[in-house]
């Protein structure tokens, strides 16, 4: 796999990764470079604050983000006046971050910028919707927070790329991680058959602060799954079979953890979770779970692949550790390697 402008064009792409210095921001810069070469004026933002020149913990130099005229970015008010790119403010995000109010701005000339993004998924989603709805940019690249793929599901239709930095010392660990992410990202989707939503939803059930929770708990009460407070429902057999699921099938409205997996009825043959970001099992536990039960998702998240930065490691050795030729098709290597030029 080789990264190209079309991989980012006309869509929202989250770049995420498992830990600090896995190459997310460097990859963001490369994505922006590809889009610029294709004549686009992309938008970009971060999740949280990532503007420091050096990392607080390691003092490692962090990549700068170059912004060209006409491009759109999100930052905190304190960095706007200091920015050399002559920012034009397009909108403000609701509320305040630890760095002050956050603004969506357009660069009126080139310059380097510091991006500060919202910590919360809903605010990231707000910013993305504004950028896309107003037509400020059609291609948006998000420098995501580490180890938080959940943010990808906050914006419908977003794709995510998973950045990995791999060396000899952590080769096995990172290969396992890649296999887990790929397994989850490829879970089959079973969308709800009917989704009636008039924008208001059903009136809340009394006695509960959260209407949805009440519905879920009520559903649990009806089907008798695993005791009170366990947010799951049994999918009617007819509905399950119509969807191609083996009955008894259950839907879990919350994270799938080792604990929640253990609380599922023993006769469960299928389980549907909201999306793959709600699965918190490691590779081994996931394997055990899937040997006994079918696992699917209500909504799938578009997975763009892995971008792998190797240090002191050959591609052949990495792919051997990956142990899956199909999975290797989802791997793009360091886009800064001269050989890739």
């Amino acid at each position, binding site marked *: 796999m080789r990264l190209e402008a079309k991989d980012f064009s006309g869509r929202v792409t989250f770049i995420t990764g498992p830990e600090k210095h896995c190459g997310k921001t460097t990859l963001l810069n490369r994505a922006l470079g590809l889009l610029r070469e294709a004549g686009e004026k992309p938008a970009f933002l971060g999740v949280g604050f990532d503007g420091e020149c050096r990392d607080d913990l390691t003092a490692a130099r962090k990549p700068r983000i170059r912004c060209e005229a006409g491009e759109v970015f999100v930052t905190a008010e304190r960095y706007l006046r200091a920015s050399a790119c002559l920012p034009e403010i397009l909108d403000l995000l609701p509320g305040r971050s630890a760095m002050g109010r956050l603004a969506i701005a*357009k660069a009126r000339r080139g310059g380097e910028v510091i991006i500060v993004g919202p910590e919360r998924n809903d605010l990231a989603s707000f910013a993305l919707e504004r950028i896309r709805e107003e037509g400020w940019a059609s291609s948006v690249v998000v420098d995501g927070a580490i180890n938080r793929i959940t943010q990808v599901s906050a914006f419908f239709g977003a794709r995510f790329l998973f950045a990995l930095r791999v060396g000899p010392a952590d080769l096995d660990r990172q290969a396992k991680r890649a296999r887990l992410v790929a397994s989850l990202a490829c879970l089959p989707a079973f969308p709800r058959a009917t989704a009636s939503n008039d924008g208001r939803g059903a009136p809340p059930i009394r006695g509960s602060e959260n209407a949805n929770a009440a519905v879920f708990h009520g559903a649990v009460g009806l089907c008798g799954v695993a005791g009170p407070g366990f947010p799951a429902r049994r999918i009617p057999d007819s509905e399950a079979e119509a969807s191609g699921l083996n009955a008894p099938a259950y839907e879990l409205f919350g994270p799938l953890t080792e604990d929640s997996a253990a609380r599922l009825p023993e006769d469960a043959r299928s389980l549907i979770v909201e999306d793959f970001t709600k699965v918190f099992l490691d590779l081994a536990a996931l394997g055990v779970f899937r040997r006994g039960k079918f696992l699917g998702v209500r909504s799938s998240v578009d997975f763009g692949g892995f971008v792998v930065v190797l240090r002191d490691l050959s591609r052949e050795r990495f792919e051997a550790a990956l142990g899956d030729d199909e999975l290797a098709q989802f791997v793009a290597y360091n886009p800064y390697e*001269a050989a890739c030029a």
Partner: protein
Amino acid sequence: MHEARKSACSPAAWTFSRAEEFWARYVPLTPYGKDAKEDRFVESERVSIEGLYDETEEWLAFEARRAGDPASLDRISYHLKRLPRLPDSLRAAFGALDACSRDSRSGDDASPSGHPSEPVLELVEIFQVKKFLANYRALLELVDGEARAAFSLSFESRALAAELDKGGSDAESFFIADGYDPTLKGLRAAIAGFDARIAALRGAALERAARVDGLDFRGRDFLVVPREAARAALGDRSAYSVEPYDSAAYLVRPQPGEEELAVEEERALCLREERLAEKNVLARLSRLAVGESRRLQAAVAAIRRLDLARARAALAKEYRLTRPELSDSDGELELRGARFLPCSWDCERFGLAYSALDFRLEGRAAVLFGSNMGGKTVALETILFLQVLAQAGFHVPALGFRTHVYPRLHFVGELRGGAAYRGIGAARDGEFVGGRGSEEGEGGGLSGFGFEIRAFVEAWADANSGALVVFDEFARTTSSREAEAILSAAVEAFASLRGSLSLFSTHFIGVARLPRVSYLRMTGLDRAAASAAMAADEPVAQRIRRINSMMKYSVEADSGQARESDAIAIASLLGLDRGIATRAAHFHDHASDGHRAPEAKDALGEISRDRPAESTERKA
């Protein structure tokens, strides 16, 4: 300001009335309207309330005038949604400026201008002011003269708006444009020139790197180069910075040449001057905005009124609400065809019929009798629901609603779901505590009865200065004799208070019959329908659903004459063992007060059958 006033509605009364469920459908669009919604403020002044009704009707009239142009209404909603909150610092700065002006007038040694030399507003705050004005102005163009007059809408900040319009590529966006300062244009032209030179120098360097050294940096500010391929870069440290990447590669970055560094230096000088000029522009724009603060605050107030009126009007249309009639005399209460919307929504969800309520009361106290599931509580909820809405400025779901405005609305009793309202201290904080019997807080250790008495004490204190107090099954947790004694005393005391109205629901028919007190009862079970249901041999679950249709949810005067027991009949319908039901009827008929009607036993005999016992809860 709402923040400084106390809402007329106690948290317990709010909860009991289920006003929150209605509130969830109340959708103001501006941040100011949303703030007001969050206040959940219930008025206690008739003039204010009538003003709110008037504004709702003004908006409804405006919408009617625009019936042929629905798109304009959509555009109004669009602009309301886009209106941002004005920066807090604007109000603070205005306050400081105002104080400074007063000092100046009083001869104190103050700056004659009173203007700060530093910008008091940040770039984003100027943006907020501009976006506010852009949407406010657009909104005004969409409403007619009558609506403008009704909501005091006027656009007077033209000079500020014109100034802010200079900066931005559209009506809402903002940047410090060249036109704000004569030096900016020159500085920015110079910076653009430097940028072009830097770009040309870099382009040439990158072209050379690709052509001579085989390093293609396009779209990348560094490359990871295999060691053997990096010899050229290592050999030209003036063109590249090179650092080890791993054992097999170097990380190579293009280095700016001397000329590029010199241009960068000049550019940096221009940037510093530009920043200074921008700061002066911001200070000037800040002064302009602060000077307009009073008008901006007036615009905010007008917008808030319009937004809330629009949201109330939307509910009035959706739920066919009517304007309440507010009376000067306390103790006047009349509901015709009153719909308790939360209950009607429940009924809709459960596929049950909903009965509207007619209720009329003259006097300062009423006692409402009725059997289990007969609708006493729902009747009280309906009354309080309408009263809360009416005093919050809403039209109400009724064919007619005539009431008095009370300074306080109270509820005394058990809330649904086992939640109890903790009396005195909690009420003052507006705090609601779910559950009962916690050892924490002021009410720790109190029983349900204790909580009730504390809530009573608070309601009593307020009732002296005017209150509507609703008692649901007051004192039901104590013995019937004690409860009847306490209830009788409470009814007597509340009935004597001018300016207050109290409504008591109770099972206890031995409450004293007092002057100036109305005694009412829910009509209750339709015996003929109940008999038919039993005869139909329906499953219990289906029969439970039909109890709703067997109940007559109407209120009638209570003569004080004994009547047959609905409770035993309902228990039978719910599957109570026939033998137990029959014995219960026997005991009821021969109770010591001797007031039981002889036909009760016959009626029961007709309708009771052997059914498995099953507990349930009436939903509507």
